[in-house]
């Protein structure tokens, strides 16, 4: 069993599961660092996946598909931004509404375009960059040569720098911690909050695109709680990109382990619980020390 876990196939499996978590989780970091709670990630992933499938199916180009997925995610995030930032409604409720809406709308359009209430037609996958040294293991080579895997790694590292070392990141953090202070030094609080939510839309949309290409189709409700796991990872990672990504890797590992252990004698129901138990244990162990941005979830009122 140990050899199974240490195999390249297992590693590939873990990465395959981790990528969509990580993208959405980093998206959550941007949104919440700026002060907008974003449980709409779940719905954004779903919309992103759906738009990717539609774009790819009708043009035959995965690149157009990704662009559609990102745009779909961005638009969904913008709804959340308007409701949370301008209308100043409760952000949890807005998020839940968007998640429910995403389930309904994708199913509705799925029915119209593909005449099925459960899944779309098959789409082409992403082309991969040749990885000569492991071409004898096609699964692994395909995965490591996947441009989205490379992009995800780049996004994780870049985000760590953007959040902590750039002007944009400093302002975003200030707006999420003490918007009044940011306002008095001339920072446009709501603009930066929009940026945060929009970036989360793009990244969660990408997360959806990954799922679409991974499955070569859209299936009803295919986000399957990944948005919530991504949020949990963001909290475990203390709202830091690297931390969030590491937490996603942990969850990806647990899930991968679960798949690997299936058929090993233990009741499958128990094995399927592994990733969730890992989530609860890690949350319970770390959440006491994780402190959210002070103004996370609180709309900014200029004149009190």
């Amino acid at each position, binding site marked *: 069993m140990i050899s199974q876990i240490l195999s390249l196939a297992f590693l590939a499996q873990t990465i395959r599961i981790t990528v969509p978590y990580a993208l959405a989780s980093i998206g959550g970091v941007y949104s919440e660092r700026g002060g907008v709670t974003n449980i709409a990630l779940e719905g954004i992933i779903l919309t992103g996946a759906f738009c990717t499938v539609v774009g790819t199916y009708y043009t035959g180009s995965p690149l157009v598909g990704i662009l559609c997925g990102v745009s779909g995610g961005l638009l969904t995030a913008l709804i959340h931004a308007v409701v949370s930032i301008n209308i100043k409604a409760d952000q949890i409720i807005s998020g839940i509404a968007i998640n429910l809406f995403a389930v309904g709308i994708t199913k509705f359009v799925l029915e119209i375009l593909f005449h099925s209430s459960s899944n779309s037609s098959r789409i082409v996958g992403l082309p991969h960059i040749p990885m000569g040294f492991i071409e004898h293991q096609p699964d692994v080579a395909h995965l490591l040569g996947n441009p989205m895997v490379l992009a995800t790694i780049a996004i994780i590292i870049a985000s760590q720098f953007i959040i902590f070392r750039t002007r944009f990141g*400093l302002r975003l953090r200030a707006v999420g*911690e003490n918007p009044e202070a940011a306002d008095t030094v001339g920072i446009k609080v709501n603009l930066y909050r929009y940026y945060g939510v929009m970036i989360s839309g793009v990244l969660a949309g990408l997360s959806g695109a990954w799922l679409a290409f991974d499955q070569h189709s859209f299936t009803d409700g295919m986000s399957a709680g990944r948005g919530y796991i991504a949020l949990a990872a963001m909290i475990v990672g203390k709202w830091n990109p690297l931390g969030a990504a590491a937490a996603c890797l942990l969850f990806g590992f647990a899930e991968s382990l679960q798949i690997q252990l299936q058929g090993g004698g233990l009741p499958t129901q128990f094995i399927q619980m592994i990733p969730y138990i890992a989530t609860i244990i890690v949350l319970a162990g770390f959440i006491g020390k994780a402190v959210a941005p002070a103004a996370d979830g609180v709309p900014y009122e200029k004149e009190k």
Partner: protein
Amino acid sequence: MKYAIELVGITKRFARTVANDNVTLSVSAGSIHALVGENGAGKTTLMETLYGIYQPDSGKIRIHDTEVAIKSPQDSIRQGIGMVHQHFMLVPTLSVLENIILGAEDTRNAFLDLAKTSERITALADKFSLSVPLNEKVQDLGVGIQQRVEILKALYRKADILILDEPTAVLTPQESTRLFGILSELKQQGKTIVLITHKLNEVMEISDRVSVMRKGKIVGEMDTPTTSPQEIAELMVGRPVLLRVEKSKANTGKPVLSISNLSYVDRRGVEILKNVNFSVASGEILGIAGVEGNGQTQLVECITGLVKPTSGTISLNGVNLVGFPVKRVFDSGLAHVPEDRLKRGLVVDFTVKENLILGLHTRQEFNSRLSMRRSAIEQNARMLIKKYDVRPDDPDAIARGLSGGNQQKVIIARELSRNAQLIVASQPTRGVDIGGTEFIHRSIISERDKGKAVLLISADLTEVLSLSDRIAVIYDGMIVKIFPDNKVEESELGLFMTGTKGNGREASLA
């Protein structure tokens, strides 16, 4: 005379009230100008209008003889105006450096250029003797240092006009002295300073000229050397006031509250109170002086039963209160004026008459078991409103809509109407203006004269000194000194409050 700031005919209305009513104010370049007035007189609104937080409904602003349009703080920063707000505008989780540059960052290749920036800030800090630890997080710093960060933040933006809103409200006497040193230094170097305050000794000590506001208007303006605290106070309040609290000698009886070996360790395992011992006798006011955050809050919470002390006893008329539920603590003869009136003193969305029976609502006079006795509650409210001069005199007014001073009067009225043997009053006049303070002080003293024991906790040294019969100083969870009377200098108290003196250190310093 050259003016740095000229405000001409500024009017600013909020929904119903006129915060600034045709205000004209000129501040000479290179001077320290004090802007004084009661709470709600419109000082802060006027200065926040100058700083671009509010837009005036009418009026003109001239900076260095040029008319300017200020639509946002950015505009005013561009005009060389900096403001240190009463509640600091700092981001606690960011470092000092990040806070200073926020909104005015230098970048190199898309990244923040921290090396160059910290050099610039260090040079600036040296020039004005404003030392701050650049890489520490603001949340780990004391308020005195946070204030210096705010000043540096303004100077970093090249401010030559600096507005400070109630800058000494949270400072110890030593820190205030240091701040005034910094302000003098800034003035020497040609900066213009506007100081919003209601502390008259500060006005006399540091300002060149003083403008007095009342109800949105400027009601007086004079050169500081030509005026007196009495004159300024009367202009502020609009009637003659007593600045000194008048009271007779205490007629002390037997101890009512005795605290012995009281310790409290909080949930995080931090020792907040360390072996506290003191007592308060009937007919006396014991004042506890201390910088906020040295255990005062927890001391009061222990006495009132809100938290359970880790060890020690708190006895009220010989009965140990430790472990009693809150209601039983109060029924044993305690009244409590909490430090945070909005959180713990009032239900702000309830009416005044409802707030006036909070905690007394189970008494038979107000409660017939089946329902509340509405007429008794109404009567109680009318009586207390009259006695304590609560405005508006409407039992059905919502507490939220009252001014801070009147909210405080509602709490004082309710608590004193308990007729308890022991009164614990935390920050009883915080944020209350001169008129209200005078009234509240008189009420407390009259309770003392009726033989009540009063424990006064206040960050306002003037208050502690003028009300107390004895003064205890709390520092780092310990009572480091108890003075047998109130004849002690503020500066002496300050040394104990900051831990410079006390607990054996006294001897080594002397």
